[in-house]
């Protein structure tokens, strides 16, 4: 399937976005829904007031979005199908939705009937079928602050809606694949909504990938809103395996109700510039969040993981583990803020970040932050930065394993460890395969 690509011509000013919006609006899903039009317009205005985040903002101290200014990144009007196919994800899925440049590709997707109480469809379809419901979900998420989220709200072209009613359970994961095309300098904004009713359980794998060997410089900006009702449980895997020139920002905004569980793994191996954010709020007691992640960088990649967890209620637990491997001139950033409100007694929050620097020019920046206003809590964080463990290296070599292979084993083990700790059989293998692909490319390819 081929379609033509005609990105609008733009300059890099705010007006450019306004022009692009006006041109694009007739094609965006939900047009004609007054509340949605208002939402989009308000968001666009907020974005224009605030502008693209810059390094003067504390939150963006280590990461520059200069690339967004440099390229026009106009929203892509129509999409080209991608060839050759990259890895999509686990073969056994309950459902698979494929989007190319943020537009739904029905042919490549697989949306069976999943039974009562479970709805998986596109945002566009949901806006037609259940607009009131979507209105409710989007409004709740309207508080997601930040210029990039506003940009997303204004331009969101499509996305996935995964809804489980109370008690509904999915045994196999739902796979959401966001594929880049060859639309040079294009921008795509996708919005996903995941809502689990009381006691519901699901796994969602969100992959942002480019065709093999793609060199396209495109901007993808994703926002996924997650709402978990009491005792619901969601495993949310976010994988970024884009081409080496891509720019990617993604944010998960999560609300966890009483006794609900959110387990997330964010893996970044591609893109020139990638920032994966998690904003987690406990809306009641005894919720739990496990935020895990891994970033593997080489060349001139800049990979940023930023998490914010708000313990607004008592008895909640957070466990965070992020590991990074940085080679060549790659730059890895981890920022983790844990906020504990005065009444959030019994909070247990632990965070760890470990970065491995493999070359003389690799850079690691880490800022684990604790803001604690309650006393009866247990909070801890740890961070380490260093090279491969020389004892480990010697142990492997003393068993006959060559230095190159020993390094590969140690790096694989370093990241394998965080994947193992996260757990979940199907997911673990899928994630490890991504890591192996990165290692193959790093060891085999030419990279500065």
């Amino acid at each position, binding site marked *: 399937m081929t379609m033509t690509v005609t990105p609008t011509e733009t300059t890099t000013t705010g007006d450019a976005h306004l022009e692009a919006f006006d041109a694009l609006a007739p094609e965006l899903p939900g047009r004609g829904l007054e509340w949605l039009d208002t939402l989009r317009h308000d968001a666009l205005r907020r974005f224009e007031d605030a502008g693209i985040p810059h390094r003067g903002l504390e939150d963006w101290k280590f990461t520059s979005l200069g690339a967004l200014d440099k390229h026009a990144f106009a929203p892509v009007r129509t999409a080209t199908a991608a060839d050759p196919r990259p890895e999509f994800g686990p073969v056994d899925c309950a459902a698979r939705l494929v989007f190319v440049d943020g537009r739904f590709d029905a042919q490549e997707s697989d949306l069976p009937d999943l039974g009562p109480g479970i709805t998986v469809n596109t945002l566009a379809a949901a806006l037609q079928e259940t607009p009131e419901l979507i209105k409710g979900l989007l409004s709740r998420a309207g508080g997601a602050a930040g210029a990039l989220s506003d940009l997303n709200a204004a331009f969101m072209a499509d996305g996935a809606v995964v809804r489980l009613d109370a008690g509904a359970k999915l045994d196999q994961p739902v796979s959401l694949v966001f594929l880049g095309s060859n639309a040079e300098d294009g921008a795509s904004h996708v919005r996903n909504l995941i809502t689990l009713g009381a006691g519901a359980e699901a796994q969602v794998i969100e992959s942002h990938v480019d065709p093999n060997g793609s060199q396209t410089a495109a901007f993808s900006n994703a926002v996924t809103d997650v709402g978990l009702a009491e005792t619901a449980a969601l495993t949310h895997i976010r994988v970024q395996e884009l081409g080496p020139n891509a720019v990617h920002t993604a944010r998960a905004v999560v609300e966890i109700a009483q006794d609900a569980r959110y387990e997330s793994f964010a893996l970044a191996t591609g893109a020139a510039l990638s920032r994966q954010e998690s904003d987690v709020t406990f809306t009641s007691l005894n919720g739990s969040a496990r935020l895990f992640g891994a970033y593997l960088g080489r060349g001139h990649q800049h990979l940023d993981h930023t998490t914010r967890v708000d313990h607004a209620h008592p008895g909640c637990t957070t466990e965070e583990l992020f590991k990074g491997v940085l080679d060549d001139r790659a730059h890895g950033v981890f920022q983790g803020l844990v906020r504990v409100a005065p009444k959030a007694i019994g909070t247990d929050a632990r965070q760890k970040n470990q*970065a491995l620097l493999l070359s003389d020019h690799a*850079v*690691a*920046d*880490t800022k*684990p932050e*604790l803001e*604690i*206003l309650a006393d009866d809590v247990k909070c801890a964080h*740890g961070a380490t930065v260093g090279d491969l463990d020389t004892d480990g290296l010697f142990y492997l070599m003393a068993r006959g394993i060559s230095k190159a292979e020993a390094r590969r084993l140690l790096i694989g083990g370093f990241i394998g460890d965080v994947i193992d700790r996260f757990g979940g059989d199907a997911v673990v293998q899928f994630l490890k395969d991504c890591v192996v692909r990165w290692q193959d490319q790093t060891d085999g390819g030419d990279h500065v």
Partner: protein
Amino acid sequence: MSTPDPMRDTMDEVRTLTEADYKFGFVTNLNADTIPKGLSEDVIRLISSKKDEPAWLLEWRLESYAKWLDMQDQGEPTWAKISHPPIDFQDIRYYSAPKSDDDKPKSLDEVDPEILETYEKLGIPLKEQEVLAGVAVDAVFDSISVATTYKAKLAELGIIFCSFSEAVHDHPELVRKYLGAVVPQADNFYACLNSAVFSDGSFVFIPEGMRCPMELSTYFRINAAETGQFERTLIVAAPGSYVSYLEGCTAPMRDENQLHAAVVELIALEDAEIKYSTVQNWYPGDAEGIGGIYNFVTKRGACRGRNAKISWTQVETGSAITWKYPSVILEAEGAVGEFYSVAVTNNLQQADTGTKMIHLAPNTSSTIISKGISAGRSQNTYRGLVRVNPKADNARNYTQCDSLLIGEECGGHTVPYIQVRNRTAKVEHEATASKISDDQMFYCQSRGLEAEDAVSLIVNGFCKEVMQKLPMEFAVEAQKLLGISLEGSVG
């Protein structure tokens, strides 16, 4: 005692004169040594002339002032987690003379009994209490002779230890060489202000190979009562030398001046070691946080020679607002930087303190141990930076920050920045936050200790690693100080 006050009459005279003379620049030939509030180039010229400073130093001050004015246009820094009403820089008196003996209490009987009670609790010997309370000098005969003996002995060894003002006159070449060498004039807003209007401070020079035989604490304590608000201290350790310097005082110090913006520069040359300890208990304000002192300090040490070592140890229990980051720049191979800190905040105090360890050369190492204790409705933040530059091969850092929260209304925050640009570095950072364990409390109480004493014991245990770094004579007092600072926080 109602004698006519010659001081007051002269002050009126002065005010008339100076207000008139502002248009014309210099004010000369004053009998009295106070000037009105406010900051201007004239005030700076006045300060410099009162101290009889050489032209180069006046120039240095004026340059700083010009830079500060530029900074002022951009506004005071606001990134720290502290809040205070804007400071009116024109409402500060930038120069005041030492009190004349007439104004001082004649004996401890004239001193506020509450202050005396604190001295008792801290176990300060009577004679020292007199000095601290500012009892007129000629009534404290012993102290003067003690001070004079020490100074003479040091001079014999080639050690220079005097006030900054004296150093400007007696050792101008040294001062000129090292002033601003670690904290340049425009380094930050308050350091810049200090560079323009600094009053006095200490100057220490330890000659090559010399190990200073006494802790420069004992001597300094005797003069603690005279500390100015824009203090400037410079310590230089020549190759192979060693000095341990203690600044401050466990006794609560009041000062009519609210803003304290000091600058301390340390320079350690090859194989030299400087140990700088601070015990700070400036008046924290009343239970509603009114009237306390703002302690905005820039302290930085540079390890300029191979294997140089600089250690900062601080016990901060006072001030309404504490804002300081004693730092070490590890510029030469094998340099070592250390930071040990206990910061206690109670009632409505705010502290945003920490350190910066900058690794620039190979084989450097740094250790950071920070213990923050918050109680009442206070906010206590550790803010630190560990930076390893590309050339800093084999850099090693270990950081441990622990927060202890007492009560439900206080806050303990940790904001570390770790920036590593060399792969042979090993950087490890750990932080924990918790409250005093119920088990520990119960254990102490079941052995007969009252709640407050139990807290004091546990808190001291929490801080032990840091307290052990203090010069011995102060460790004991500092421990008591911790207990006193947390009074009223439990139960």
